[in-house]
């Protein structure tokens, strides 16, 4: 890619298409949220919206998976995530063990289906 565009141009694209689109939201958060009180009722709504948007990102990746994940059948994709969630709940909410469990289901499923 960088051979195609040249290093400086690739870095400029990184700033315009990668850095700014993310930083704009973070700085908007500092500007608008930097003064909110921790116990404020508005924060309950903001946190709910943050969780729901993250949930949307999760659903999007599972329904329209990128790259190599698209080659995995939907039942295995969803099955691995559901298994991870169940293991997470069963282990007093350990993210790490849940992630390992979900990944193990995916790898085993891929191996089993050849």
């Amino acid at each position, binding site marked *: 890619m960088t051979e195609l565009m040249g290093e400086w141009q690739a870095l400029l694209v990184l700033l315009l298409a990668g850095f700014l689109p993310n930083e704009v939201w973070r700085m908007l958060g500092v500007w608008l949220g930097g003064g*909110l009180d921790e116990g404020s009722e508005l924060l309950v709504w903001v*946190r709910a919206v*943050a969780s729901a948007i993250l*949930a949307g990102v999760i659903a999007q*990746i*599972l329904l329209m998976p990128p790259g190599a*994940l698209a080659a995995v059948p939907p039942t295995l994709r969803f099955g691995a995530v559901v298994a991870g969630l169940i293991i997470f709940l069963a282990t007093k*909410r350990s*993210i790490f063990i849940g992630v390992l469990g979900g990944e193990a289901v995916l790898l085993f499923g891929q191996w089993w289906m050849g």
Partner: protein
Amino acid sequence: MALPSPDSTTWTSPSSAFLLGLRSAATTVLSLVLFATYIGIGALGHDTGFSLFWVLASTVLVWAGPAQIILISMLSSGATWLQTAIAVTVSAIRLFPMVVSVLPMMRTPTTKKSQLILPAHFVAVTMWVECFRLLPQVPRERRIPFALGLGTGFVTVCVSANVVGYGLAANLPQLFGAAILLLTPLTFLLSTARNCRELADYLALILGLALFPLAGMLNTGVDILISGVAAGTIAYGVHRWRRSR
């Protein structure tokens, strides 16, 4: 590893709070998940012909896994910078409510907004979850240096993983490609679930998953924003309604 108690003398200087933040990043198991994800991003960058420096710069400057995956895959598949910028902007909307909900935990009445810029830059899913878990154990006036140490630690983990992934790229077995890509939805789901405190948070997560496919049918380009605001607002409404009874 447990943090010292809030009245411990360890917290008396900002620099030791920074070091405790670094140590927390080094000892949390979520760093292993980040490491694996960023091995994947390093390998993706290598396979699509970006320079190692560019990949490392993207980790430090963008600092959001899904955005980096979109950025690299769209640019390498021939999309223009403007198309890519729009897609990344939409994917980054989540950062706004995350920053808004985490900063009030860090500020004191005398904190200036400029002191919040770097902590806000470090906000991404892992940082968000770990701040909710760890900041309550940190004395309020030391939370900013602690968060800076935590963020610096996570960036260091990811940059190292990029170097490893970039170097290994050609030797990574095909089987692991899908496994690395599954890390993002898995960690996002479990992290968000662990951050749930009240009914509103649980409802938001479940409704957010359920409403996305519906909003997706609208094909607006900002479907995630529509389903997220709708699900979050319904969840908040239920929370208000239950409390008012």
